[in-house]
C-alpha cells in the first residue's frame, strides 16, 4: 500500500507538471511525443489490431495495414529530418528545442482534407457492407478503422488519450469472439503494453521495463475491484448477434461427404471437454461422442433429415425413457463443456439423458442433443449415459424407409456386392461382419490424404483407390448395408479424447486416474455407422476398426500423426509436441489450467451467480438479489470514488498554485502581450532586469513585484508575514497594472 501511495504521488506529480505546462503554452499547443514513444504507440496499434484481425474482412485489413504502413513511413521520415538537423545544429538551447519539435510525431503532415475524404470513403464502405456482415462486425470495422486513422492526427494530448482508449476498446471487443485462457493472457499482455505506453509518456526518464512493472502492479491492485464486479455485476445477455461466418472453419457440419473429416483433423483446436468427476473414465474405444445422425444420402453426401420430418419423429419419441434400460446397466454421469462452435449440436455418449439444468437443450429421437440457440459462448451441461444400453428398440416405418433409401444406380458395383452378400448371409450382423472382413483383408489403407474421388463415387474408392479416411469406410459400409436391405445410418462426432489428469500428467491413456478431464480436439472428429438389428436396436459398427484398429482402441497411430504434422507443416504440431516429453507435460498443464478457466471464469453464468448468492445469503428473493447487487455496486463504486478522491487530493496539493504564483503568472501573461516573454529557464530576477532594459517605465513596479514574489516563494516566512507580504504584492500588482495601462 505504501508503495502504491508513492506511485500515485509520483504519477500525479508528473501529471501536474504536464497540466501546468499545458496551461502555459496553450496557444502553441505543442504536443511532443518522443520518437521512441511514437514507435511504441505504433507497435501497440499494430498488435491490438492483429488480435482482432480474424474478425475483420480482407479489404478492411488492407486499409488498416496501408494506413499503419503510412504512419510508419512518416515516422521514419521524421527521424531522417531530425537527424540531418541535429548534425549541423548549433548547441544553443533555442535551436535545440526546435529540433525536438521536428522530431516529434506531430510532424506527420497529412492534410486533414485528404484524411477526411479517406475516412468518409471508409465509412461509406462499412455502411454498404453492413448488411452482409451484420451489425456487430460493421461496428467492429468502424472501431478498427478509426483506431488506425486516429494515428494520423496526433496533435494534442487528448488525441493521444483517444488513441489509447480506442486501443482498449479494440482489446475488449476481441474478447467477444474468443475467451480461452491463452487468448485472454495475450489480451492482458496487450492491455499492459497499452497502459505502459501511456505511463511512458509521463515518466519517460524511466525505462520502459520499469514502467511495465508499474503497470502490472497497478493492474494487480485494481484486480480486487474487478473481482467484485465479476462476482456481483448482473450478467446481461449480449445485445448483438454473433456472426456465423466462422462456422465453416471449426467443427463438423450438417452434411458430410468423403474427404470432409480428413480436413478437419488438421485442426488442433479444442472441440469440447468432458469431466467424469470421481468416476472411472471409460475405455478409449467406448468414447464415441455422438453429435449428429445423418440419415439422408443423395449419392454424394450424407445429410440430416429434413427439419419437418425430424420434428415429427422427435415428437413421437418424446415420451421415450430409460426406465427399462436403466436396470442392470450402471449409469455414467459426466459434465460436458462445449467450446463455442457456432453450431447447434451438442455431444453425448450413446444413450444418455440430461441431468441437472436442461434449459435450452433438446433431446432428439436419434439420441443426439441440440441446443436451442447457436453456441457462441462456452456452454456446460450434465449428462448421464448408459453405455451398454441399446439405442431405440423400435423402428417406425417412416424411418425404416429413410434408412434404406439410396439413389439407385449411383454405385452399381457396390450394389452388386450388396446383393451378393444379401444372398450369402441372411443374418444382418453376419452380413456386416462380412463387409468388415473384406475391408480388413483386402489391401485397404487408412490415410489423411485420400485420393480425390470423381463425383464422390463410392465405387471408385472401394474398388480402385482403396485408400480413405473414416468417412469413406463409414459411407461404404452404410451404403452396402442399405443396399443389402438392412437399415443403416451414418453418425458423425468425435472419438476418444485426451485424458488430462492434472495430478498425474504422465499418464494420458486415462484408465487409472481418478481425477481429471478429457479434452476432445477437432482432430478427434470421426464418422461411423449404425445398423438396425431386430431386437437389439441400433448397433454401432465402426468400419474404421477393421482397417486401423489402433485409431479406435487408443487413438492416432504414429503413422497418422506423422502424416498430420507433414500436412500442417507446423513447427508446433501435435506430433512433435508429443515427442518432447517436457513440452507435452507443459501442454497438458496448460490445458488443465485452461479447463479450470473455462469452467470457473467463462462458465460463470447468471445461474452460477444466482447459486453463489444463494449459498452466501440463503434463499433468494428478487428484492434481496437486487439489494445485493446494488449494495455491492455502491460499495465498489464508493471504493473507486474514495481512491479517486485520494488521488485528487494528493494532486491538488501541488497543483493548486499559490496566490502569489497566480499573481505572478498573471503579470507574466500581461507582459507577454507586450512582447516580453520570459524564457522558462530565466529566473525572476533576471527577467526583471530584462524588463528594465526593454521598457524602463515598468522597471520599478515590476522589480518590486518580482522581489515580493521571490520572498514569498523562497523565503521561510511565518504565516503572518506571508499575509502581509501578500497584501503588499497585491498592491504592487495593482500599481503594475496601472502603469501598464498608461
Amino acid at each position, binding site marked *: 500500500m505504501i508503495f502504491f501511495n508513492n506511485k500515485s504521488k509520483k504519477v500525479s*506529480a508528473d501529471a*501536474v*507538471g*504536464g497540466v*501546468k*505546462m499545458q496551461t502555459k503554452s496553450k496557444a502553441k499547443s505543442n504536443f*511532443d511525443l*518522443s*520518437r*521512441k514513444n511514437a514507435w511504441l504507440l505504433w507497435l501497440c496499434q499494430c498488435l491490438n489490431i492483429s488480435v482482432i484481425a480474424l474478425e475483420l474482412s480482407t479489404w478492411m485489413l488492407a486499409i488498416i495495414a496501408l494506413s499503419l504502413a503510412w504512419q510508419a513511413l512518416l515516422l521514419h521520415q521524421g*527521424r531522417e529530418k*531530425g537527424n540531418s538537423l*541535429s548534425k549541423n545544429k548549433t*548547441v*544553443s*538551447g533555442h535551436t*535545440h*528545442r526546435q*529540433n*525536438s519539435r521536428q*522530431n516529434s510525431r506531430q510532424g506527420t503532415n497529412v492534410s486533414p482534407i485528404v484524411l477526411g475524404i479517406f475516412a468518409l470513403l471508409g465509412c461509406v464502405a462499412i455502411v454498404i457492407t453492413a448488411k452482409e456482415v451484420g451489425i456487430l462486425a460493421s461496428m467492429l470495422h468502424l472501431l478498427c478503422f478509426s483506431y488506425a486513422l486516429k494515428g494520423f492526427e496526433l496533435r494534442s494530448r487528448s488525441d493521444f488519450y483517444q488513441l489509447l482508449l480506442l486501443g482498449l476498446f479494440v482489446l475488449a471487443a476481441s474478447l467477444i469472439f474468443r475467451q480461452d485462457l491463452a487468448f485472454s493472457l495475450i489480451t492482458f499482455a496487450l492491455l499492459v503494453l497499452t497502459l505502459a505506453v501511456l505511463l511512458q509518456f509521463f515518466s*519517460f*526518464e524511466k*525505462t*520502459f*521495463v520499469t514502467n511495465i512493472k508499474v503497470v502490472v502492479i497497478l493492474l494487480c491492485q485494481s484486480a480486487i475491484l474487478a473481482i467484485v464486479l465479476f462476482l456481483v455485476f448482473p450478467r446481461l445477455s449480449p445485445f448483438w448477434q454473433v456472426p456465423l461466418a466462422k462456422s465453416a472453419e471449426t467443427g463438423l457440419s450438417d452434411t458430410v461427404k468423403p474427404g470432409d473429416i480428413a480436413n478437419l483433423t488438421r485442426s488442433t483446436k479444442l472441440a469440447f471437454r468432458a469431466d467424469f468427476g470421481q468416476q472411472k473414465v471409460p475405455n478409449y474405444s467406448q468414447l464415441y461422442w455422438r453429435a449428429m445422425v445423418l440419415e439422408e444420402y443423395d449419392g454424394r453426401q450424407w445429410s440430416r433429415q429434413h427439419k419437418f420430418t425430424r420434428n415429427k419423429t422427435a415428437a413421437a419419441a418424446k415420451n421415450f425413457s430409460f426406465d427399462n434400460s436403466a436396470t442392470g446397466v450402471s449409469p455414467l454421469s459426466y459434465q460436458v463443456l462445449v467450446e463455442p462452435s457456432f453450431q447447434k449440436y451438442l455431444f453425448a455418449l450413446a444413450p444418455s439423458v440430461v441431468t441437472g439444468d436442461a434449459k435450452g437443450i433438446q433431446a432428439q429421437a436419434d439420441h443426439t442433443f441440440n441446443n436451442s440457440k447457436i453456441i457462441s459462448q462456452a456452454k456446460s451441461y450434465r449428462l448421464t449415459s448408459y453405455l451398454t444400453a441399446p439405442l431405440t428398440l423400435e423402428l417406425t416405418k417412416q424411418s425404416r424407409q429413410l434408412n434404406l433409401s439410396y439413389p439407385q444406380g449411383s454405385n452399381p458395383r457396390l450394389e452388386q456386392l450388396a446383393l451378393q452378400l444379401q444372398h450369402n448371409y441372411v443374418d444382418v450382423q453376419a452380413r456386416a461382419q462380412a463387409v468388415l472382413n473384406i475391408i480388413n483383408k483386402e489391401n485397404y489403407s487408412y490415410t489423411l490424404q485420400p485420393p480425390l474421388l470423381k463425383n464422390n463415387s463410392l465405387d471408385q474408392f472401394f474398388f480402385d483407390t482403396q485408400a480413405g479416411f473414416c468417412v469413406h469406410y463409414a459411407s461404404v459400409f452404410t451404403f452396402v448395408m442399405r443396399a443389402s436391405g438392412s437399415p443403416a445410418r451414418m453418425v458423425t462426432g468425435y472419438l476418444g479424447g485426451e485424458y488430462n489428469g492434472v495430478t498425474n500428467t504422465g499418464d494420458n491413456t486415462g484408465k487409472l486416474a481418478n481425477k481429471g478431464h478429457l479434452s476432445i480436439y477437432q482432430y478427434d472428429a470421426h464418422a461411423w455407422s449404425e445398423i438396425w438389428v431386430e431386437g437389439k436396436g441400433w448397433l454401432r459398427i465402426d468400419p474404421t476398426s477393421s482397417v486401423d484398429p489402433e485409431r479406435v482402441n487408443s487413438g492416432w497411430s504414429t503413422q497418422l500423426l506423422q502424416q498430420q504434422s507433414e500436412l500442417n507443416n507446423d513447427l508446433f504440431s501435435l506430433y512433435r509436441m508429443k515427442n518432447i516429453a517436457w513440452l507435452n507435460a507443459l501442454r497438458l498443464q496448460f490445458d488443465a489450467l485452461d479447463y479450470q478457466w473455462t469452467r470457473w471464469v467463462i462458465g460463470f453464468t447468471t445461474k452460477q451467480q444466482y447459486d453463489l448468492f444463494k449459498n452466501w445469503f440463503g434463499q433468494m428473493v428478487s428484492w434481496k438479489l437486487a439489494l445485493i447487487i446494488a449494495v455491492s455496486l455502491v460499495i465498489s463504486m464508493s471504493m473507486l470514488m474514495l481512491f479517486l478522491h485520494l488521488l485528487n487530493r494528493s494532486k491538488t496539493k501541488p497543483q493548486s498554485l499559490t496566490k502569489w*504564483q497566480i499573481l*505572478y503568472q498573471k503579470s507574466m501573461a500581461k507582459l507577454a502581450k507586450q512582447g516580453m516573454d520570459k*524564457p*522558462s*529557464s*530565466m*529566473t*525572476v*530576477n*533576471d527577467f526583471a532586469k530584462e524588463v528594465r532594459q526593454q521598457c524602463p517605465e515598468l522597471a520599478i513596479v515590476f522589480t518590486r513585484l518580482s522581489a515580493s514574489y*521571490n*520572498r514569498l*516563494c*523562497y*523565503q*521561510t516566512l*511565518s504565516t503572518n508575514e506571508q499575509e502581509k507580504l501578500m497584501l503588499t504584492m497585491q498592491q504592487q500588482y495593482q500599481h503594475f497594472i496601472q502603469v501598464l495601462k498608461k
Partner: protein
Amino acid sequence: MPQTPPIVDIVQASQQSITAILNKIESVVLGKPKECRLALACLLAQGHLLIEDLPGMGKTTLAHVLATTLGLSYQRTQFTNDLLPADVVGFSIFDNETNRFELHKGPIFNQVVLADEINRASPKTQSALLEAMAEQQVSIDGITHELPMPFFVIATQNPLFHAGTYPLPESQLDRFMMRLSLGFPDLKAEKQILLNTSQRTNQTSADSKGNSKADNEGVIAEAELIVMQDAVTQVSVSNDVLEYIIALSHVSRRAYNGHISPVNNTDTITSEISCKPLSPRASKALLQAAKAMAFIDNRDYVLPDDVQAVFYVVCQHRLEMQPNRQLDASQLESSSVARQILNSVDVLNPLGY
C-alpha cells in the same frame, strides 16, 4: 523557525566583513569580481577549489590573497612529477637525542593549502592530497592526525593539453566543489595590472617563496570565519529551489540512462545533451555553494539565481565528457553542457520539465 533571528543577524552582521574581504581580493585580482565572489563562496561553503587556467593568469595570486585576507595559516606546495606523498603529508624521523620518532608535518597541516599545478604530480601524490581533502585527517605511520579547521585546499592546474600533465580522474575532480577559470583580463584591468606590477614587485616575489606572512593582515579573524561558515549551512532553502536542483541533476542523468540502455535512446526532448550524470554529491555541493552565494548576497534564503550563478563552476567539470580548453572561458560558458542543462529546466516549475 526559532533559529531564524540569529541567521538574519549573522547575515547582516557579516555583510561588512564580506564587502571588506571582496574589496581586498578584488584589489589584488583585478577585473574579476565574479570569480572572486565565487572563490569566496566556495570557501564559505567549506568546499575545495580548483583553479584551472593557462600559466600566468593569476591563479596563484587569487589563492594567495584568499588565504591572507581570511587570516588563515597558509602554505604553498609546488607539485612536480617527482613529488612524493610524504612531501605533502609529512613523515616521522628518528631523533637521536630523544631516541624517539618525531613527526615532521607536511604542508597539508595548514588551514589553506595551495597545491600549485596539481596535475603535474604523479597520481600517487595527487591521491594522497585528495584523500586528506575528503577525510579531513591524515595517517602517518598508523597514527591519525586531525587537520586544522577550517581546512581549505586550493589547487591550480594547467589545461590538460599541456605537456607533462597527469589529468585528475573524475572521482578526484568530484572532490573539488568548484572549478574556476579566470580567463584573460579585460583592457582596463590589464592596463592596471601592468601598472601595479611595477609598483609592487615585492608582493609577487613573495608568491613564489611559499610560506609567506606578507604585508597583509587578515581582514577577519578565524573565529568569525567559522561563524560565517556555520551560518551558511543554516541558510534556508525552499522546496522550489530543492526541486530546481533535483530537476537539473535529473536532466543530466537522463542522457546517461539512455547511454546505458539502447532502448531508451537519445531522442527524447532534452536528452540530446551528452554529458556525465551529476551525482548526489554534486547536487549537495551545488546546494551548499548556492547557500554561500545567498549569504554573500545578504540573504538568508536561496534563490534560483544563486543556483544558476554557481551551476557552471560547480557542475561543469563533473559534466563534461572531454575537456576542451582551447576556447576562451567566457565563450565556453555560453555553449557549455551546463548552460544547456540550465536552459532546459523551467525555473518556476522545475519538475515539469
